[in-house]
């Protein structure tokens, strides 16, 4: 993982636990800490495979930040683009199911019509335990 490379690049201060907030960079752009990357990787199971990915994330955040320029005083926040649609209510009838074979087709392993999963969540290796990358 490139998280370690990020760590080396940003050199998180020794002995201090950083909060998980983005720091403002020199040009007002956002800097992501290594801890945040690690946190995001665990939460969303995405792999920030390279320095470029992290940079892309920063650009995306900066892009979204431009929303702050809009004056939203007294304006109700929008919940979703569907918020003025009607929520359709379905009658309580059984119309689906009974397709165990089809549903199980996608599973890597099946035992007697059960999906097979590992015994628990597999923890991601911690930051310190990762391979050391040599960085240029």
């Amino acid at each position, binding site marked *: 993982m490139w998280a370690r490379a990020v760590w080396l690049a940003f050199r998180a201060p020794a002995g201090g636990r950083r909060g998980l907030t983005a720091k403002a960079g020199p040009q007002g752009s956002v800097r992501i800490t290594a801890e945040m990357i690690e946190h995001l990787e665990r939460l969303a199971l995405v792999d920030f495979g390279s320095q470029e990915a992290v940079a892309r994330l920063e650009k995306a955040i900066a892009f979204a930040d431009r929303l702050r320029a809009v004056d939203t005083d007294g304006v109700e926040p929008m*919940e*979703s683009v569907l918020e*003025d649609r009607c929520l359709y*209510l379905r009658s309580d009838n*059984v*119309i689906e199911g009974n*397709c*165990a074979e089809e549903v199980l087709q996608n599973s890597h392993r099946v035992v007697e019509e059960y999906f097979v999963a590992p015994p628990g969540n597999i923890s991601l290796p911690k930051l310190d335990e990762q391979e050391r990358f040599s960085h240029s």
Partner: protein
Amino acid sequence: MAAPMLRWCCPVRRWALACIDGGSRYGRGAATGCTSSGKRGQSSVAQQPRITAQKPRKGEHEWAAVVGLEIHAQISSNSKLFSGSQVHFTAPPNSLVSFFDASLPGTLPVLNRRCVEAAVMTGLALNCRINKKSLFDRKHYFYADLPAGYQITQQRLPIAVNGSMVYGVCVGKKRSQVINKTVRVKQIQLEQDSGKSLHDDLRSQTLIDLNRAGVGLLEVVLEPDMSCGEEAATAVRELQLILQALGTSQANMAEGQLRVDANISVHHPGEPLGIRTEVKNLNSARFLAKAIDYEIQRQINELENGGEILNETRSFDYKLGCTVPMRDKEGKQDYRFMPEPNLPPLLLYDAESLPTAADLQQVINIDQIREQLPELPSVTREKLVQRYGMLPEHSFALLNEVGLLEFFQNVIKETRAEPKKVTSWVLNTFLGFLKQQNLAVSESPVTPSALAELLNLLDRKAISSSAAKQVFEELWRSKGKTPAQIVSEKKLELMQDQEALEQLCHAVMEGHPQVVTDVKKGNPRAINKLIGLVRKATLSRADPTVIKEILEKKLSSGDVSGPSARGRTVQP
């Protein structure tokens, strides 16, 4: 590790430290109140509470415990919350799973109207404010039984908020008094259930069945207004009864339709609240109070020993009788709540705001639901007390056992006996027999008609009350016989022949002159002895009150010479 002995005083919401083995610095805490050692049947057992209040010894601290509950009730509906697959307890694995439930790409949630109605009904029954607009959110976490990687719930704006529920705690010497307590309902929200995991430790794998994934749940959050395991268990029981009366959930804990998580903390009265732990996996009515009380005592012990309480999630181990930290829960979870983008806000209406020319199928009217609410348990109990003159605790007992109320009402319908007599027989004799043999009302060998007939015989004074008990026993043992049959078989009819009875009394009096003298001397117990002798002579077929009358009449009239002998012998 055995569960420690627990003693405190619940109603006063104070925990005087218990007399724990080996703990010499712990004083003997005492006050009136409840003790808990697990649950019997539906309500927890209280041992004999100490009646005399003693002052805690110097150096003792009092502890107060605070218990909040998150209760998940499976909604009783044909299909799931967001899909049309069936809701059923037992079915072949993964046979009740639609493509949406399996979280296959391209599927969308479609809200089930029945689940919304169930939520509104429950909210109204719990005195909540129904939010006319409520929102759905995604709660993200990874687990194999959650195929989508998120659960659709209502975090920002749930469907009902700010309610309350009254429940009755049994106190007093014989737990015969009922005290009403109130717990605030923080909110009720609609959410999806997850699938089921079967852990196969042998092969180091987990088997996943998604039949339950997507079933509609009502999460009822109760504020931390409860102070011990018994209060929590009683509140849960009351909620169960309410849900069952409404028909919104069968709320059967054994079948997993009702699950409880408890948030528990302790503190010294007057000081701020302590760190709370969450205890999950409280899925048995029997162990609910026990688990909560264990955790309270564990926290007290920990703090007393200078330790600290971690804000962690624990699980109750039924075999060991203690709470243990749950694995897989490292640190605080970040659920990354976000609005569910596929569902617009849920809008509800009332009579005023109902849109005209609306498709009724698409519109939910809160007022209409309120009008159609079934009778709640508290109202049923009140009616029983008013109509039949029974004590409140009797009404609680009648509603607490499945099928008992119906049984009682059927007996009342068919008997001329006084309601108080019926109440007493149903709650003491009938229920006693059931409990002894661990039977449900539905498994009772005695039918309401049989008991009604028996009570009629008793009411007519055709049999004595002790004979009635014998008949009941026989009814229980041998199916198919009617009370009348048993009475004649065992010759239990009360002697109706007054004269014969008088002769018998006379004979007894003649045969025991010493006792007669004692009675005349004014010894109050002697008359009972005489009555007993006559009863024996009649083979218990005479009414003791009638015997007493006859004896007293004879004694006062000084008539010790019996009726002129006519060569008649008394036929027993």
